[in-house]
């Protein structure tokens, strides 16, 4: 027996030694996605697909500046050096393209590539139409009508109507290499051997298992040449799996750790990286039915939630209280009158004014929530705290958990059919650009099924401000209008604003140089991995 133990110990140590000799300058990332996001150009898997695949392999004409942590990421020139809307015809935009940019296959980037990409998304009868990619990105390019080549390095983008939000849409159209597509002539094959202009190129793709990228040596921007040689992305939908993979040294970076593991990870020397970014976790209320059709009740609910408690005790500081759609310090936050700090006495008072009373006329809404899901944080535990807070002031919400896939499907239908008996849903959203922040939820023309105004929220003043913002081409002035709009929404309280996620990720002590931007996306070119 003793000999057996000795042999076994030797074997195990040998195997352990063999694994220690991993490659240097390689960043290994555990993603939350359950599969490798689509790499054929326009990614799937929502913003995680853009974060790790889309924006690493490809580039848009207008890009996000992800190099700073202290302000929401602004838009900056990407593959276009400059752009301008025509004064005489505000539906037409001229984009001057960057010269001397190469695709990963060595072919040059030019106006033909932009038009080719546009056709792959919009021209259904083109041989290079990408059915799948098109379905992913089309909703993000809602205002764009046509793209024309003016010369080799100039394109014109035409929109359906004059709108200043065009740059916020162009940033999602990722330019693919026509030369590479002609070589493979099939989008599935293209996804396996893709070619963009991004700072990384794909070297290996094992579906559902791993994606390997290497630094693109001929990248056009010397400031953004990758410091690591190689990045490996591994899909790990289970939080505990990600945690174990990080702690066992299989990966150097994980997205969204389980919040209760954070103190232990800190103790073990890992870097916990957080920052505010455009994410909100809310209850979207039904406004055409009791009790949420009463503004006083909605305000009462907003004063009843102990947001600090949720972030401190439950989520270990991986979120921050939300008192509006955006957060304080964001250019669209403004100066709302209502501050929604935790004030149960005020909440009870507001309920009384609204004519509700816990004993005689209790408030009993039914809220549809998810059990888990991308970006949903810890929906069950958080909602139980919200429920407890609201019950303390006399609002007795009935939580109905459904699985994530079912919730998104029901959300798109609005409060009709099987949702008739519901009074709210809990889904988290991004507010990356004006449309996703306000347009799709608070515009009277966005009522379901057109877009996602499920409540429905109808306010002519908000409509007017949204139209005005869309007509204002000066970003500073546009931000002011949106801040005014936000003040009105906070006062109307069509949502119970609860928390903003802080995008927690955990990096091993070896990972250096990562700057967490106020964005859903990241710049991986500044990252290096030490020994």
């Amino acid at each position: 027996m003793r000999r057996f133990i000795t042999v076994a110990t030797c074997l195990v140590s040998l195997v352990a030694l063999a694994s220690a000799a991993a490659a240097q300058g390689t960043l290994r990332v555990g993603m939350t996605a359950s599969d490798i996001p689509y790499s054929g150009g326009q990614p799937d898997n929502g913003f995680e697909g853009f974060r790790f695949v889309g924006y690493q392999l490809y580039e848009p004409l207008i890009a996000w500046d992800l190099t700073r942590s202290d302000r929401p990421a602004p838009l900056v020139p990407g593959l276009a050096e400059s752009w301008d809307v025509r004064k005489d015809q505000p539906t037409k935009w001229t984009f001057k393209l960057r010269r001397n940019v190469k695709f990963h296959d060595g072919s040059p980037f030019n106006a033909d590539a932009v038009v080719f990409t546009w056709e792959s998304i919009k021209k259904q009868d083109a041989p290079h139409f990408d059915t799948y990619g098109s379905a992913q990105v089309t909703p993000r390019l809602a205002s764009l009508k046509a793209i024309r080549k003016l010369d080799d390095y100039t394109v014109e983008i035409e929109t359906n109507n004059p709108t200043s939000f065009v740059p916020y849409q162009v940033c999602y159209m990722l330019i693919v290499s026509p030369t590479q597509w002609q070589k493979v002539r099939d989008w599935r094959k293209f996804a396996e051997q893709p070619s963009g202009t991004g700072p990384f190129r794909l070297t290996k793709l094992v579906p559902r298992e791993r994606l390997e990228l290497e630094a693109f040596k001929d990248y056009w921007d010397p400031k953004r040449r990758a410091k690591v040689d190689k990045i490996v992305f591994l899909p790990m939908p289970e939080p505990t799996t990600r945690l174990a993979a990080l702690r066992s040294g299989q990966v150097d970076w994980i997205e969204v750790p389980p919040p209760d593991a954070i103190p232990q990870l800190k103790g073990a020397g890992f870097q916990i990286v957080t920052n505010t970014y455009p994410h909100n976790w809310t209850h979207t209320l039904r406004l055409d039915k009791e009790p949420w059709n009463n503004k006083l009740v909605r305000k009462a609910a907003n004063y009843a939630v102990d947001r600090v408690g949720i972030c401190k005790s439950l989520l270990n500081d991986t979120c921050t209280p939300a008192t509006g759609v955006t957060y304080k310090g964001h250019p669209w936050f403004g100066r709302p009158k209502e501050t929604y700090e935790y004030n149960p006495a005020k909440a009870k008072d507001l309920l009384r004014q609204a004519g509700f009373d816990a004993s005689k006329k209790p408030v009993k809404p039914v809220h549809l929530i998810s059990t888990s899901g991308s970006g949903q944080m810890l929906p069950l535990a958080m909602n139980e705290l919200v429920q407890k807070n609201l019950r303390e002031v006399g609002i007795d919400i009935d939580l109905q958990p459904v699985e994530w896939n079912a919730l998104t499907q029901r959300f798109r239908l609005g409060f009709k059919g099987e949702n008739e008996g519901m009074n709210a849903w809990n889904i988290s959203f991004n507010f990356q650009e004006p449309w996703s922040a306000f347009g799709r939820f608070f515009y009277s023309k966005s009522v379901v099924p057109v877009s996602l105004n499920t409540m429905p929220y109808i306010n002519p003043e908000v409509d007017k401000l949204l139209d005005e913002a869309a007509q204002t081409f000066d970003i500073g002035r546009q931000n002011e209008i949106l801040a005014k709009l936000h003040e009105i929404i906070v006062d109307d309280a069509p949502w119970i604003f609860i928390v903003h996620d802080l995008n927690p990720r955990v990096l091993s002590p070896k990972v250096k140089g990562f700057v967490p931007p106020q964005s859903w996306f990241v710049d991986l070119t500044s990252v290096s991995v030490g020994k």
Partner: protein
Amino acid sequence: MWAYVGRRLLLAIPTLLGASIIVFAMVHLAPGDPLSAVMPIDASKADIEAARHRYGFDRPLPVQYLHWLGRVVQGDLGKSISTRRPVLQDVTAALKNSLVLAVSASLLSFGLGIALGLLAAFWQGRVLDKLMSAVAIVGVSVPHYWAGIILIIFFSVQLNWLPAMGASAEGGAVEYLRHMVLPTIALALIPLGVLTRVVRSAALDILAQEFVLALRAKGLRRARVFAHVVKNAAPQILTVLGLQFGFQLGGSVLVETVFSWPGTGYLMNLAIFQRDLPVLQGVILVLATFFVLLNLAVDLAQTLVDPRIARH
């Protein structure tokens, strides 16, 4: 015997049809739909309807089913909704990984289980028997996903000896084997417990029979008696082995999910959450076929071991 094999294979057809109809119906009964998982939340109703039409989800269910069946008969399992890859390609790759795991876990659990069971039977009532029974009870009652998590915490996180997740990385066979160790142990626990108990009770049954007494009375050595007992217990053990192997292949969803092992169980779990119907149907069909063939193989093997069990 060949007529018997032919008949059994023919009987497999209604079994597989039944399995596929049940899966098809269950996916459609569950709330949610396949397109919710692949379309962005902002997709307009028109976009979703167009996609629904493209995938054929707007047709009546029986028509959808028959359409699917028509292609399967021609050897085409269709394409995944969420990845657009051919289902056959994904299922084959996953099946390979699952088979590897099922075989390694089976070797471990069958070898140990049979040995422990026989030892316990021959030393019935002694300390060794009590110890083996304890092992068996632990194996049967500890949830294997929980055991998997404990193994990860101990061997990956604390000791840093073995990888916590995934199948292969760079580094070839040694790496692949290293990734296999923990899931194999986790997966082997239940069959180990089951087998130890079955083998013990089967062996005890036979030990209690009169022919064993006769063998002993004739003065046969212990080892010869042992051989007789094993031979007589074999058919019963074989049945359990077959079933357990099948369970390990199809029932490893939890273990594969805990270890992110890219096998059929993991694939099935993903497909369920994404409502990826073609993938789900494909996995179930392949697994069901495997089960049918495995049962047939076990039945035939029983005949070989014990000619008294004739198969006509």
